[in-house]
């Protein structure tokens, strides 16, 4: 037992402030910590995944998304198994067991293509989606890639260390009808009208060029043809 713990490599401490566009972290009334135990399956027995431990993630604060990732590295046999999955274009599955405060334990499943995790050299992203009270509703393991694959083989050296990034993703506040700015806009328009700012201050030519140009062209053409006629009769 002791040796296993020694082998645990402290891979990464990822402290991440959530990158979403309009995040107001104050939205979450509750703040809490999560501990997530992750298991993965590198081979299947008649379609039933055989699970082995992959590591632990602890989210110290769901509000600011501060996480601590602690994952085992893959043994050569495990790397080989993963490579076999990738070569035969099979699925790689993780199961996350989430312990929330209040001792609730929930299981989440996420599956991705083994060749994609192999191609990314075990650089995956874990998305932990929370509902509006900060409870976990889904955990997904994804690979940042522009295309999917249909089987791939990698050198086993590259399939050893997980470099996972964890994103804690909150539920945003829904939009509300924006009546205030609309009324403001209407009032501004009204004021502008009263002041007469809306008047067209462009010059006469700028305003009516589209009417003037055809008239001029017609005049030029007709005068030109007149000149021809007179020339011909002469």
């Amino acid at each position: 037992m002791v040796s296993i713990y020694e082998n645990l490599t402290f891979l990464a401490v990822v402290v991440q402030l959530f990158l979403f566009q309009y995040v107001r972290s104050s939205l979450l009334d509750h703040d809490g910590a999560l501990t997530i135990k992750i298991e993965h399956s590198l081979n299947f027995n008649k379609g039933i995944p055989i699970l082995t431990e992959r590591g632990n993630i602890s989210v110290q604060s769901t509000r600011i998304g501060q996480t601590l990732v602690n994952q085992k590295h893959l043994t050569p046999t495990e790397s080989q198994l993963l490579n076999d999955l990738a070569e035969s274009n099979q699925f790689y599955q993780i199961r996350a067991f989430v312990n929330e405060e209040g001792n609730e334990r929930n299981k989440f499943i996420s599956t991705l293509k083994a060749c994609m995790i192999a191609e990314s050299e075990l650089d995956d992203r874990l998305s932990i989606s929370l509902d509006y009270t900060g409870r976990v509703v889904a955990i997904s393991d994804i690979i940042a890639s522009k295309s999917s694959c249909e089987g791939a083989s990698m050198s086993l050296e590259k399939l050893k260390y997980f470099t996972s990034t964890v994103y804690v993703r909150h539920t945003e506040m829904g939009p509300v009808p924006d009546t205030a700015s609309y009324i403001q806009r209407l009032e501004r328009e009204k004021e502008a009208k009263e002041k007469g700012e809306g008047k067209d201050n462009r010059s006469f030519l700028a305003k009516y060029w589209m009417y003037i140009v055809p008239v001029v062209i017609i005049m030029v053409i007709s005068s030109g043809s007149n000149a021809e006629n007179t020339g011909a009769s002469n």
Partner: protein
Amino acid sequence: MDGILFHVSSKLLILLLSISYFTQEISCLYEDQAGKVDWKISFIGKVKYADFGNNKLLVATEENVIAALNTKTGDLLWRQVMENEAEQQIQFFNVNKDVTTVSGDQTVVSYWSINNKELIHVIPIEGSHIEITSFYLETGEIKGIPKKINTPWLKDAFKCASSKQYFACVQKNGEIEQIRYINLIAENSEVLSKPIEFSETGEAEILSFEHEIPSVLLVKNNVAKIVHFKNDVEILAKTFLPNVVNVKNDVGNQLYQLEINVNNPEKLLKVKGQDKDGNNQVSVDVEYPKGLGAPYILAGQCRTNNCDLLLSSIDHALLFVRIPEGKILWTREEALSDIVAVEFFELPVSELDASIENEFKTSSQDILSMFINRILTQSKQLTKVFIGSQLMMNSMLVRDDFGLHKIIVVVTRIGKIFAIDTLSGQTVWSYRLPHVVPFDNRNGGDVMLFVQRTARYSPFPAQCTLLAKDDTTGNTVMFQFDPITGLSSRGVVKLDRKVKQAMLLPYEDKNHLKPFITIYEDHSVKVHPEESTVIVKKHVSSIYLYMVDEDAINGYSLQLIDDRLQTFRHWNFLFRGSKLAGISTRPSGERVHSQGRVLPDRSVYYKYVNPNMIAVATISEDPVNKQVLSIYLIDGITGMVIYALAHKRARGPVNLVHSENWLVYTFFNERYRRRELAALELYEGHVQSNSTFFSSYAMSQLPQVQAQSYILPAVPLKVTVTLTERGITNKCLLVALNTGAVVEIPWALIQPRFADIPCGPEESCYPYMPEIPLHPEATINYNQTLSKVKGISVAPARLESTSHILVHGLDMFYTRVAPSKTFDVLKEDFDYKLIILVLIGLIAASYVSKTLASRKAIKQAWK
């Protein structure tokens, strides 16, 4: 338009602005166009009570409708729809000079005029025990003081019936069954009882029975006896069937009951009339339509020798039978008032077109046989052109150029399938599936209707499959049929298990038939038809599905284990105690025409079009915010939550509409006590990650979400979006309101605006207005009120501009909408004559001028 006056100036501005925008978008109807393409059929629901009065047939139904029907044609004279059928169900119905109804748990007595649907009085009654209150119906005044009756003997209220002033119940004291009754209006009323003498075994039941003398029916083991309350209770000796009905004629009372006619296979039904002692028997054979379920008598009326009987079948059809002729005067299919699934079907090509298609299909390369084939088919075509095909001419079910003529197949809750012609609204065929009811699980709606093959592949007929629940066993039943003709080669197939989920696959076999898979509780998968298993095995890695369970949504993929198909759980999404309020996926046939939105600076903002996205709405109970509505956008393959948002203090019902790269939902905001509509739009950004194909696994960046919310100044019942063949036409939301209107809201009006980009006419963008203007001109059903809308179905026509719309509920309304106007057809009032005249005139003028010119040239030459 300018004449509309409003007291609030800001409102006036909103309105003027919106009118000026709307006038470009909405094409309303001229008076003479009403009913040209649209039709409406009104229903009343399953009839509960019926009576004759004032030459009308008055009915009260389970949909909480009171209506008057024309006895000669069965047409609706008037209809009064009452709300809330769950709590205010009509319990008593009486036709005298006018109509009296008693409805609901919190009892309300209503008094209606018989000639129009006018409500004369409403009298609310409170109290939970028997209490007698007398009213003057005409004025609604209470007569005297209410009288209370002590009812400790009332244990089982279901075994009671009332008849005029008598109230009677069946009670069992050990082995002895007795009838206890009370005269409610007698001065010193007391409960009397009489033992029941019945030779039949089983439990006795009591049914109400209309008669001059107050009476009830005692039923035991499908045998009925009439009980008269006079001074004493009298149980008549003669036995009847439980559906016996008393009809008063000139001579006296005649009792009618329905019997099955064993001897005559042509006329299956026998109406038997007799008096209460079994004398004066009349027996009339009725040619009962074979497609209808078993009938029972609702009401009757006699005049001299003629008697009219109103029958209802167990599949909710109303029939009006005249005896002694035994002729069915009219039938009303009230099953259509509760539709659970709708599908639009293209019609097959005409025989002429089919033969032209077949002419080029021959595989033979031999010149001579090809030549013979060509001569043969062309001579056939010639004869057809001149003589015309009799078969097709009769039915006229032939595809037109624009795909405007379609067949709508609807499945009703009672298990009856109807095919309806879009042009006329008439039923082409109907088919009753006995003991078939909708599913009660959360997957894929009430029933599943799969279009396996359309009529495009002549000579193969179109094929459609219905999956529903067997009422008796609870297992799944399958019914495969040709939607054009209604023919089914195998009939109703009973599966031996419950199907948990089913899915139509996009792959076609060599006969152009799309197989579908059924998934069972034990994760096993079956392919229908079985020969297509090979196809499914070939595509096994690209088939994914999801199932909604009590507390989670689970995603599955298919896998092959020992050459057997199985589901494999791929992902899960937990509700965490919330309740599912709605789930929506994109319409399966939808095409997205443009990949992005062009911004005013001429750059393109690419849409995030994920065909696998599922929109889920949940409602959670919250101690602080009462109820919270959460919306999740989930990728159906990886299970990743793409986006999530929540509305606090929001309440259902939630309507979700998901199309292209956007989602629209409506809900009730409890804080401001108003209905709101929110729109979300997803974009990839200025760079497209992969322009050739979409993979859910390849997620390079999260989509950028634009959101905007609006006040909806109406109560939406159902929301949907228009669908066109190629998706070029602008989208329009169709919102069915509780007022009976279906309004069209252009998507451009609710599309979220970019915060940093100007919005105005130059950018073809409507400035943001917090309240969605709902204009009377935008109502697609103009003045045709549609009651209790339960769904709106949309299908594209072959004309890009046009969509077919079927709104169903208590009324069925079909119309066509063109959100961007009919840009691809000439207007109806296009002046063909003028253009022909002008053309002829021009040709004539050119010839005249030519001769004139030549003449002039000759003259010039002679000069």
